[in-house]
């Protein structure tokens, strides 16, 4: 297989593994276990499905590690187009992964409080549950902050795709719009929390840009330049009219 195509396929495959684990910890588990505003019910749910909750923590950590791998794979694919933008893309991804990694600590704190070890006996149960709920809420706030970076890294990514010559331009544009979608969502969540639900619904079509590039990389790979000579294609600029 042509090295360019291979690099694209690898990036696509890593992307796919993220798309699979993400919804589990981001959507499925929270909607299943967290009862908004009700600490006692949330505590009961989480203790009853502790394994699932722990799996979600693991999926969060796994997702951050995969994100780093994805950024490096995309750097290999796209750094030939422009090194600076590619470095910026990796930087945003690295910090996002670090923020995501640390954010799981909030969920672990919640679990510790809900389980209530002996040393926590100085708090009565409703207080422990309330504190645990606070950490669950902090975790979701952390995700909303991280959403800003999920957006920001897409701008250099989209720009590189647009300019690459071996990936479709419209997906590049879509990714750059996707960037602003996430950033707008994050800003809405942090400053106008009341409008988040509505904004999320409207942003959906924009957010599918990532799905599009994932599928394209996985299925089509990259269009190999006609004037190819060995490994040069990985580091040369697009050769198209």
């Amino acid at each position, binding site marked *: 297989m042509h090295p360019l195509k291979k690099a694209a396929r690898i990036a696509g495959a890593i992307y796919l593994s993220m798309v699979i684990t993400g919804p589990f910890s981001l959507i499925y588990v929270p909607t299943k276990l967290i009862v908004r505003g009700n600490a006692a019910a949330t505590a009961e749910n989480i203790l009853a499905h502790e394994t699932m909750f722990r799996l979600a923590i693991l999926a969060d950590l796994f997702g951050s590690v995969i994100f780093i791998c994805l950024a490096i794979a995309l750097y290999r694919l796209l750094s030939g187009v422009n090194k600076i933008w590619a470095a910026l893309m990796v930087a945003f991804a690295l*910090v996002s992964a670090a923020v995501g990694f640390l954010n799981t600590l909030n969920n672990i704190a919640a679990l510790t409080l809900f389980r209530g070890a002996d040393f926590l006996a100085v708090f009565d149960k*409703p207080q422990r549950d309330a504190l645990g709920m606070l950490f669950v809420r902090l975790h979701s706030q952390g995700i909303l902050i991280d959403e800003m970076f999920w957006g920001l890294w897409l701008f250099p990514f989209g720009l590189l795709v647009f300019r690459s010559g071996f990936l479709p331009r419209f997906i590049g544009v879509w990714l750059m719009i996707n960037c602003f979608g996430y950033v707008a969502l994050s800003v809405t969540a942090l400053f106008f929390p009341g409008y988040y639900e509505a904004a999320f619904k409207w942003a959906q079509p924009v957010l599918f840009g990532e799905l599009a590039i994932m599928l394209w990389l996985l299925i089509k790979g990259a269009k190999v330049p006609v004037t190819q000579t060995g490994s040069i294609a990985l580091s040369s600029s697009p050769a198209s009219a």
Partner: protein
Amino acid sequence: MMKPDFNMSPRFQARMAGGLWWLCIVSGVVGFVAGAPLIVANNAAATAANILAKESLFRLGFAADLISGVSYMGVTIFIYCVLKPVSRSLSLLGAFFGLAGVAIGGASWVIHLAPLLLLHGDQYLTAFTTSQLQATSLAALNLQMQVFPIGMIFFGIQCISIGYLVARSTFLPRILGLLLAIGGTCYVIASFSNFLMPSFGPRLVPLIMPVALIGEGSLALWLLVKGVNVQRWKEQASLGR
């Protein structure tokens, strides 16, 4: 067809670094000026009343913190590119310290939002008395402020390495590198004295911060206004290869 210059010239990179650096400094100062007056030391009730009365100011402080962190990621990448001709590995090392510093700052963003969750008195928080919630929220703010000196150690080391590279470069004035390295050393000293001598450290900060700011500000201003000497940059770049 018109083709904009996608490959940025070293002067443009330097200007971007300088501009983003100033954005980072200004938003950092705005964040401090907006947030700090709301906190009344050792008085949780007054602090809580301030935050609730001036919630938009509190959120502005948070937003400014976020902008400062994000723009610093841009600074880190552009500075890395500008100084790469001097020493690629040392420049990369500095960039890693910078990104780690931003990620540590990212940890404090979530804690920064905790007071809002605590003080808005969701139903589940009725397990605690108002004064308990206020005390917890002040504790969260104090914890958040402890993160700053931790990140500062990393920024300090980054500044020392950037300063060294600037001094060794032929395309930027040596004195700016020296000033920045002194500033970076000040950051590291201020952070450690803050941890090791909590009664003495905070008194050192007002003396040390201006020195650090002069170092960062003067290099940032030079980069923004003058950029780099492109011809010498190219010479040094070709020597290194």
